[in-house]
Structure formats: C-alpha cells, structure tokens
C-alpha cells in the first residue's frame, strides 16, 4: 500500500506521469486509484494529483499519510507538504514558476518559504529539467521524474510494467529518448531499490 502526491503547475505534464504509474500498477493486477483536479486554468494553475496503490477506496490521501511527494515545482511542493507522512520522501524538481500575482507586485520568488519548509523534510533534489535538456528534449523531464521515483523503491511495481505503461502512452518515435530519460532519472536519487523495498 503506497500513497503518492504529484504536484506542479498546469502544463508540466503532472497528470501524464501519474497515469503511467497507475497504469503500471493496474497492469500488475493491483488496485490503483488516482484523483486529478482541473482548476479553471488550462495552463499555469496549480495541479495536484494523488495516486494510491493497494486496497484503498478513497483516492484522496488523508493529511499526513503520503509516502512520497513528487513535486515538479518548488512552491507547489510546499503547498502539498501537509499530505506527507512523517519520514516521507520529497522528490523535488528544481523548477520555479512565479505566481503572476507576485510578479505584478515585483516580488521575488518566495525562496525562503521553500527552503524553510522543505529543509525540515526528507528531500531529494532532482534536476529533471536540466537532465532532459542534456538529452536534447526538454519534454522528457517527466520521464526523468518517473525514473527517480522508481529508484526509491516505494512504488512496489516492476520496472517492466512501468516501461510498458510508458510505451503504451507514447508514440513509438519517442520511446528511445524516454527510456534514456528513465535511466538517467534512476541514477539521480542516489537511493537503491534494494534499500527501501
């Protein structure tokens, strides 16, 4: 049984990542639930997706009980931190997307809030955007995140299931670069599957 929050900003592909994880679990015959919220904005609004694998009925994760928070954006990591259980892990993509209401007031990105709140938890930085750029395709940042999440071992699903779920969701011409991104992601957390699972 595992509960994971995926958080980010509309347009970052947060939902796509969560679907792949859920599909992989279902392909293994597991129960998986996912809840996604679409706010009013098509792009740029906050997005959080919750995925639970195991014998659950509620897709919404109770406060303080998520095993992991996979954040695609720093402020959104902070916004969702209350869902994380004690000792839970945060995978943080170092990406900052400035809220427009702060920009209008010429405010800087609220770095101090991010550092202060995330400094207290078990956090692993994943520079997914940079890795993706190095691979020559910034769109595969999400797949880097999946790789990183997989390497923590908390998913409890096989690599093969994840890989085939990814392939089912992607046109064949994008398979190679996504597999590379997945492999790169796996290296990023410095954790080994055996340690945790």
């Amino acid at each position, binding site marked *: 049984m595992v509960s994971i929050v995926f958080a980010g900003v509309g347009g970052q592909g947060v939902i796509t990542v969560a679907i792949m994880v859920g599909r992989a679990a279902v392909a293994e015959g597991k129960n998986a*639930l996912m*809840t996604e919220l679409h706010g009013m904005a098509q792009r*740029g609004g906050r997005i959080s997706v919750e995925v639970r694998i195991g014998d659950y009925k509620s897709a919404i994760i109770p406060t303080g009980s998520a095993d992991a928070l996979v954040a695609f954006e720093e402020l959104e990591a902070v916004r969702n931190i209350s869902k994380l259980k004690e000792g839970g892990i945060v995978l943080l993509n170092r990406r900052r997307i*400035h809220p427009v209401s702060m920009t*209008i007031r010429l405010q800087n990105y609220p770095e101090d809030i991010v550092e202060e709140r995330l400094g207290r938890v078990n956090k692993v930085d994943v520079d997914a955007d940079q890795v993706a750029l190095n691979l020559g395709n910034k769109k595969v940042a999400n797949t880097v995140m999946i790789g990183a999440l997989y390497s923590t071992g908390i998913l409890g699903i096989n690599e093969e299931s994840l890989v085939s779920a990814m392939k*089912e969701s992607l046109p064949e011409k994008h398979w190679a670069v996504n597999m590379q991104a997945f492999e790169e992601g796996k290296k990023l957390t410095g954790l080994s599957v055996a340690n945790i699972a």
Partner: protein
Amino acid sequence: MVLEPLLGPEGRTEFLLGNEAVARGIYEAGVSVASTYPGTPSSEIGDVLYRTSAQMGIKFEYCTNEKVALEVAAAASAGGLRSFVFMKHVGLNVAMDSFVSLSGSGVKGGMVVLSADDPSMHSSQNEQDNRFLGKFAKVIVVEPSSPQELKDFILYAFDLSEEVGHPVLVRSVTRISHIRAPVRLGKAREKNSWGYRRNTSYVLMPENAYAAQASIADRIERAASSRFREAFDSSYGESPTLIITSGAAYNYIDEALEMLNVRARILKIGMSFPLNRERVMEEIGKAQRVVFVEEGGPFIEEQVLALCALNSIKKEFYGKMNGFVPTSYEMDVDRTAGFLSKIFGIEMDVKKDESIVPRREPVLCPGCPHRATYYVARMAMKQAGIRNPIAPTDIGCYTLGYYEPYQLGDFCLSMGSSVGSSSGFAMNSTEKVVSFIGDSTFFHAGIPALVNAYHNNHNFVLVIMDNSVTAMTGGQPTPETSPPFRRVDIESVVRGIGIKNVFVMDPYDLKNSLETFKKALRSDDLAVVISRRECALEADRKRSPADAKVFTINQDKCNQCYNCVKNFSCAAFYTEDGKVYIDGELCDGCSVCSEPLVCPFNAIEVKD
C-alpha cells in the same frame, strides 16, 4: 503505439478515468445516440466519444446547449433507440424545461441523463446537488461511487429505464468523474433498431399532461419494485450503528472508521430515488442509531426520516439536518473522521499546517488572445475617459479577466448572463456598460439576450471574444468548427439581428484593435466588438516545433518601467530583484508583448 483502451476487448482491466468509464459504459449498453454541451467535470466523456463514437456505432454530437442536447436524445429514445445525454450539474438547469416534461412523456428506448456535480466548486459557480432536481422532475436517480460503478450503473440504468419506460438520472461528482481506477471491460450489447410511432404522451398539451401525471407515479412505483433495484444497493458490517451513505461520500467511510478504530454497519444506497423502502426499513429496524453520510444535501436523509415518521420509528439520528454532518463542500477521509469522531464520542487530534503559502491564481495561458483583448479594452476605456465601467462577464477562460491587472469582470451568474445583465445595467446606470462573452457561450445562451438588447433599445458594448473553440473545458468544437460541420458565422448572426455597430478586430494587433475599440466605445447605440483570434493552445497544437519562437528581455534596453508586468501581465513574465525576465519554458512566442503598446522601449525581442 498509443493504445485506445476504451475499445479494448471484454474481460480486460484498464486504468480509466470515471468519464472514460462512462463512455465505455454507454458503448456496452448499446446506446445509439449521445449528446452534450461540454462542461467540467463531465467534459472528457465527450472528448472520448468525439474520438471513438464512429467505431462504437454511436451518433454523437456537441450541441449548442444542454437543453438542445437533451431534446436530441429524447427524440432518439422516442424512436426506440437507447440514448444518453450528459452535462455538468449547472447544465441540467439549462435543460430543466425539457427534463421535467420528459418524465411525463416517458421514454421508449432506454434514456439516461448524466449530471456531473461539482461539490467544493473546483470549476463551477455553485455546488448544487442535482439529485434534488431528479426527484423534483420525478426522474429515477442513481448514484455510483467509483469509475467501475459508473460503468455498471449505466448498464443497469438503461435496463431499468427501458423496462419501466422512464428516464434515469445518473449523478456523478468531480471525485468520481475525475478519479482513475481499474475498470473491467464488458461486452458491447446489440443496439435497438429505430421504430418511431406516434404517441399522445409525446405531446404534453393539458389533456395529455393530465393523464401523464398518473403514469409517472406508476412508473416510479414500478422502478421501486423492479428486479434491477438489487443491483444498486449493498450493505455489510455488524454493528448497532448504521451508516447510510451513497456516492463519493461512501469511499471515505471505511478508512475513517479504521482511523477511529470503531465499527459500523454500512448501507450503501445506489438508487436514491425511489428508495428501496423495505430494505431501508429492515436495516433501520436492526440499528440503534443511524448516521447519514452524503455529499451535497440531505437527499437520502430527508426521504428516510420521512419514512421513519410514517412508520413511527424512533432512533438516534445523526446527519445534516441536526448539524452533525456538514452540508457544504466535498467529503474526504479527514472530514469524515472528524464528524464521525464527534458522533462516536472519540477524541481526535487534528493536524494543522500553519504555514502560509503564496497563492497561485488561475491565469490566462501565455499567448492567450483574451489577454490582448483585455489589455486593449482597458487602454481604450482609459483614453475614452471611461473610469468606472460596469463589466459583466461570462463563463469561460476569459472569466479570469476578473483578476488583476485587468479587473474586467463585475457580474456573472451563469452561461450567457453577461448579455442579459448588460440590458439591466444599461437600463439603469449612467456608467458605460462593457461586457464580455466567449464564442461558445454566445451560441449557448447569448443570442436570445442580444436579441432582447437590440429590440428593447439598450445601449452597451458587447465584446465577443471569439477564439473558435470551447477552450476552458479542453478545446471542444463550437458551432464555428468546420469541417466536417457547417460553420455558423458570428458576425452574420449579430448583423442578422439588425445591429449596425459591429466591429471585428484581431487582438494580437494591438494598435488597430485600440482604434477599433475606441470607435465601439464612442458609438451611441448598442455595439458589438468581435475580437477574433484562435485560442493559443489550439494554435500550439497545429504549429510545427520548428516554427516555435521564444521572446526575451534585452536588459540593455529595458528601462524598468514595468508596464509589461503590471498592465499586460503575461504569465511568462517574472521579476527578480527588480529586473524583468521572460520564462522561456512558458513563453508561447505570440510576440504581442514586443509591440510598442506594451514595451515602449522595444526591449522585448525574439531570443535566438
């Protein structure tokens, strides 16, 4: 290969969105006709059908509004076909006129209406509980709890509807329609064949309507005792405490009870109107106390309490009507554990997160033509000396014009209300009325209101923000979409009413748009500005990556006047230590910010 899981073979289990399960469900149920007007949280049903309905053998169409959609489906059902119409909760208000009569007419082919309610208003103007509308219209109401049940209940609902000759309302909510879960695919049934025969009940003139009333009661009674009723309700657990629940609220109870370490017997109601009275009374008879846990209003609670009163049954009751269970917002495990703990008399420590996180308001996309329209509108009004415009707005992405810095959005009740309310404001106010509506919303409910404004001599400026797509719900077609459909031209519609002051502008061209807008403001009669430019997301989908451009700020030229961030305010701009930047990942390359009317110093340039 990207798979189409919805057309998979019987027996496969797929990870489906509730709305996708609905589409699969109607395919399995042998539906021939489906119709809708897009609305979140029901939109994806249409997205799927738009893609796959031909393969499913379903005639599917996007209608101009929910009332039309319901009538399209009702006619198909009168001809013996199974038909399905779906909408967001407030859409049922639009369809209500025909919906109420439908229960009088009855149906021939099974007919199911799905309403996706939105407790907590994630993307809506209210959280009305449409089970009450179902009962009000005397339509059978069923409420699934999960994507699998959405699919299953739709099958049972069609069978029931056809058996008793009565429409069924399926009530979903955001946390069912937008949940993903494993769904086991079943077999697709054969479809009914067309066989329309005249029937007096299809024409509800007073004489026929009088007779229909009696038959409604009869059909509801038959539904209450139908063999299908067993398919909807379930119960389990041993305890003197009975929890009567339904819909999404059900999903949170087991985990909440576990959290509190207490037990209860659960009666999960799937058909909440008409109730299976014998079963409910039997369960209540065995219980010491009864707790009602529903999302929305006390729908089942009121009916059960009425039954208990009639049968002189006294128990301890806990629900919304005596304040133990909250009446607003969606449920979850935390909330459910919270009120159950009080009912069970258990102390619970509530974890509170004190930190304040800066808000992230929803915003118009980078490159959105609405931003340019609002920017021009503000500037034109300022130059025309209009300080305090009254700006009714409407339902769509452009409602975001309400936020800073545009702040053009003063009044918005429902689809099309910008135009109707403009008549009311213009009739009474001395301030200039400038209102905003999108193309899809204009077709949906704006046209009759504009006819009213012209006919009754009201003077205001209506801006139709025409991006040729239903954007907020994910880019569905509109009456302007062509081919394969026939294009309805907004300008011809407006001119056809008789309105003379019609102005068309391309909002990306700020300079000319400003002049056009000022002309419209100066006209002393009803004026319509059609601000026409394709939705940025649609344009993105069509553009080849090679043509993508990104803009950047030339810091040597930037004078830090901040006009771009404070007044134009593209979501791709940001500032750090007083310097303005453009986030290259977000910039859509629309180039509007590089026009002198945004940056007077020509500091915004294409990045090479």
